[in-house]
């Protein structure tokens, strides 16, 4: 199935021609990722790639295949959560969307415009509309800048015509909106606790009034009681500012609470996309089922996880066929041979699994 067809299966009730009408603009995807691939070269420069083999000089190249053909679309106002274990490519997706990494193949469309091949100058207006929040607030704030300077920087970049009063007023406004006392602008990042730092990082993202925010594990580095504060802040900001989120996390409890839709990733591919409630009620993909069963729940006395055999393969030597077949309890010959595609299901989810497609799971 092509990426084009995919975006249609998500809204099956709507005929195609209606999408162009302004009243339906709300339903058109804000961000569309088509066939995205990203590989990282491990082999160094040309001379380092040369090897002697059987008396001959051969060129030897090795790649980390971080993302292998990801199709996703994010509609206005939703919070799409991408979950998966470390090394599944979820952060690479986030960084590629933001233009921090350039894709090896595939396209990224933002509000109808292709943005992955734009020049930095042409991309600037889009950078104002999309902002990012990083995982570690200890690393993402410049230790030599005061909070005032940190928050002024994006405003000055995107609004060069604003005078000083206007910039200062904006900084005070965003500081207040994240619950940081505007009088603290002269302080440095190290004077704040982890939770406060993450609030400042959120304030920096909100300072240019973006419509789309990519948050890469924004609460993983924080303590439980502080996680709740930051999640509440992100949800409030979404309501007040009508934000759209791409939320990267490995914490399924957070996904269940925060996300409107979930994409589960494994080894650089999306194996299931579904509305949050559907995914948690009826996970279809065997990997999703194993992942959900592994969450430590407060209710049961004893963990009953679905045991997966083996280890996650390295993204350097990807397995043939379905990337999950080596650990899947339901794998058959076709799974080892053929890469499964995301197929729309009756309950509104999309699953990339031969077993589900054939109806044997």
């Amino acid at each position: 199935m092509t990426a084009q067809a995919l975006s249609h299966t998500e809204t099956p009730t709507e005929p195609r021609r209606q999408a162009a009408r302004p009243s339906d603009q709300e339903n058109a995807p804000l961000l569309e990722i088509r066939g995205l691939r990203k590989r990282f070269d491990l082999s160094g420069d040309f001379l380092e790639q040369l090897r002697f083999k059987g008396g001959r000089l051969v060129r030897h190249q090795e790649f980390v295949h971080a993302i292998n053909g990801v199709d996703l679309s994010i509609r206005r106002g939703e919070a799409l959560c991408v979950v998966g274990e470390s090394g599944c490519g979820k952060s690479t997706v986030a960084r590629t969307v933001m233009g921090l990494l350039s894709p090896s193949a595939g396209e990224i469309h933002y509000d109808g415009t292709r943005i992955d091949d734009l020049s930095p100058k042409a991309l600037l207006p889009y950078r104002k509309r999309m902002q990012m929040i990083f995982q570690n607030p200890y690393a993402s704030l410049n230790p030599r800048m005061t909070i005032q300077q940190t928050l002024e920087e994006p405003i000055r970049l995107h609004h060069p015509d604003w005078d000083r009063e206007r910039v200062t007023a904006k900084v005070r406004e965003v500081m207040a909106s994240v619950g940081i006392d505007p009088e603290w602008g002269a302080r440095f990042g190290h004077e704040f606790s982890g939770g406060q730092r993450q609030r400042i990082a959120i304030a920096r993202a909100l300072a240019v009034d973006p419509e789309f925010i990519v948050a890469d594990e924004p609460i993983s580095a924080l303590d439980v009681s502080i996680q709740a504060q930051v999640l509440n802040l992100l949800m409030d900001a979404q309501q007040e500012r009508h934000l759209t989120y791409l939320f990267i996390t490995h914490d399924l409890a957070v996904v269940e609470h925060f996300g409107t839709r979930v994409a589960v990733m494994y080894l650089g591919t999306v194996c299931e996309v579904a509305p949050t409630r559907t995914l948690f009620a009826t996970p279809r993909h065997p990997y999703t089922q194993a992942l959900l069963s592994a969450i430590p729940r407060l209710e049961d006395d004893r963990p009953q996880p679905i045991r997966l055999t083996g280890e996650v393969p390295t993204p350097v030597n990807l397995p043939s066929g379905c990337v999950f077949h080596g650990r899947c309890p339901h794998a058959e010959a076709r799974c080892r041979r053929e890469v499964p595609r995301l197929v729309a299901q009756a309950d509104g989810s999309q699953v990339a699994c031969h077993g589900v497609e054939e109806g044997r799971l």
Partner: protein
Amino acid sequence: MALLEVRDLDVRFALRQGEVRALRNINFTLDRGERLGLVGESGAGKSVAAFSLLNLIAKPGYIAGGSIRFDGQELIGLGERRLRRIRGNRVSMIFQDPMMTLNPVLTIGEQMVECLKAHRRIASREARAIALHKLQQVQIPSPETRLDQYPHELSGGMRQRVIIAIALLLDPDIIIADEPTTALDVTIQAEIMTLLLELCEKHNVGLILITHDLGVVSQVTQRMLVMYAGRVIEAGPTREIINDPQHPYTQGLMNALPQMATPGSHLNQIRGSMPPLSQLPSGCAFHPRCDFVTRADGSERPACSRQVPDFVASGNCRVACHMVAEMLAQEAATEEDRP
């Protein structure tokens, strides 16, 4: 008598800015084969507690007072040579980061044999056989090959299995596990936790599990201690605390979990953050963040900011909270009024 008995443990750090009391009045016991959870946020003192049990506190920290009795023997003040006979042998530890614990220049087999030889007079061949047997117990695929591999050749989950095998090597009475699965992915975490639980049950090994994850504690341990700012604030059977937490901090911690709220709704956050140990507020350390400092009728409860709360028994649990103490006293008074 309990296998491990900790009484009034007091650990301090002599810093340039003055002395910081990292742990105060820690009391707990652990029976043979029992599993105990130490829960708290970062900075609560749970790792310091675990380290001080085997006197592994590095300077400027020191144990200022209290008693740690293991199998009838007092560990505080015990000489280093005698402590070494207990450490790793009768009480072993599992740390958070397996790569830090394993020696990168020795093979898995060499490290395991070294550990056995340090505690027992044993031939190398025999030690290797025991090592292999332990690796089989932790369900590592192809254990013979692993013996001759180096730590960097194994994945994170496999390394943590090796660590568990080493912890079990000398058939200890107690394993102290400090955030053993925090560095691992969810599915691997579930596997490792299940394995640890099964092995502890099978060999009747006691477990002290240090974690910030209430879900893990609830699934693995029988009793738990909740720590805040260097003190235990609530202790009791895990089920009872999880189902009905008494201390406002424990309640806040539970209610802050996303799985406790309806999806999309506001989470019940605890305001503020834990104070650093050098700047503890007077009275109950939690009172600046607590919603119950004022009574239901709007009047102040002055004790909260003045006096450190004592433990009161509430059911099978012990809680250090003025509000809970007051409620229990009121209940007792109304009981008495009845003829």
